[in-house]
């Protein structure tokens, strides 16, 4: 008997019914000594508590990374991750980057030309020359 793959019964359409934010974790890395982490340390002390409270669905981890530039890393439901270096940035700039990672879909960046992607079949069906009336030109 040939091996059969498992058929998917439904297609994932996040947001059509329930909505789940794609970002599941944000890692904040900083260095206590380096000057490029100055803004990051201020951000961690002042802004991060409110940011974490506003987004209870995102797990937030803070860990030191000595002798390196500060970094925010976003982890997504699709398994991908997105790191953003935030060296020499002010706290409000870092908040912007954190919001960017929060709202991102986690997909690889692609150039898309068509605005709509649909899994549904065409509503009006495919045109056939053998059906329907003849129409005057």
């Amino acid at each position, binding site marked *: 008997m040939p091996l059969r793959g498992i058929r998917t019964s439904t297609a994932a359409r996040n947001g059509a019914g329930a909505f789940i934010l*794609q970002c599941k974790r944000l890692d904040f890395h900083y260095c206590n000594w380096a000057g490029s982490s100055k803004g990051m340390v201020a951000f961690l002390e002042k802004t991060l508590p409110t940011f974490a409270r506003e987004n209870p669905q995102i797990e937030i981890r803070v860990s030191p990374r000595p002798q390196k530039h500060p970094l925010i890393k976003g982890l997504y439901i699709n398994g991908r991750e997105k790191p953003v270096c935030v060296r020499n940035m002010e706290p409000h700039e870092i908040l912007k980057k954190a919001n960017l990672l929060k*709202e*991102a*879909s986690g997909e690889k960046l692609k150039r898309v030309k068509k605005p709509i992607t649909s899994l549904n079949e065409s*509503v*009006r069906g495919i045109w056939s020359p053998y059906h329907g009336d003849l129409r005057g030109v």
Partner: protein
Amino acid sequence: MFSRSALRSLASELRWTAPSTISSAAPLQQRACLHQSASLMNAQQPQSQSTSSHPESPLSATPRAQDTQPENVKASTFDENTMTPQTRAHVPIAKQPVAPTFTSPLKVTKSVMSQLPHLVGQKPHYVVAQLHARPYLLTEGDHIRLPFLMPKVKAGDILRFNRASALGSRDFTMKGSPTIDERIYECRVRVTGVDSEPLRIKEKTKRRQRHVKQAKSKHRYTLMRVMDVRVKTPDELLAEGAVVVEDSADSSVIEPRS
């Protein structure tokens, strides 16, 4: 000057008398339930009890709120200054989305009224929604990546597209002139996030110059998902106060497929 509790009770009564209330059995404490007024009433109850001496009076117009559980600890301990709103109950009344107000009742022509059951009964439906004068042909569950970044929206927000030039099923199409009245259909869209394109580098050169300038661009786009595309039945329209009028030249028409 009114007190806050008086204003709030007034607004809640207005909200309950509005025809477009969407009821649900289990209010979730998420942004997803922006349209659920039941959670609003839950959260208002402890607040109004603490501020007004007669707690029963503002709730008299809302019998359904008393059926659900009256205690809602999370919403009552909500501080406006430090937290962002999670449900509509957390948003101040002044900042809540305003339901559209119409000066005249919906006018439906006789021909549309007679053809509408055919259109409603034949699923699925599509809608050609106009956004910044561009058409988007949408069906339920479609993924949209707008060619621009929509301002002032967050992931999880629900929008309602109310400019449609056409609305149809397999065999019937309703054409607007130029748009269909938004009270005939419902097209809700959920904002799912913001996407970005890969960095584009364009090399700019000038004649007889060795220098090459690199112009960089990296645009951001809003992602959306169509939640539903629904056409209302004639009974629903009449229940909402639609008026049947005679046909005229500049009214929407439903055309069968030829």
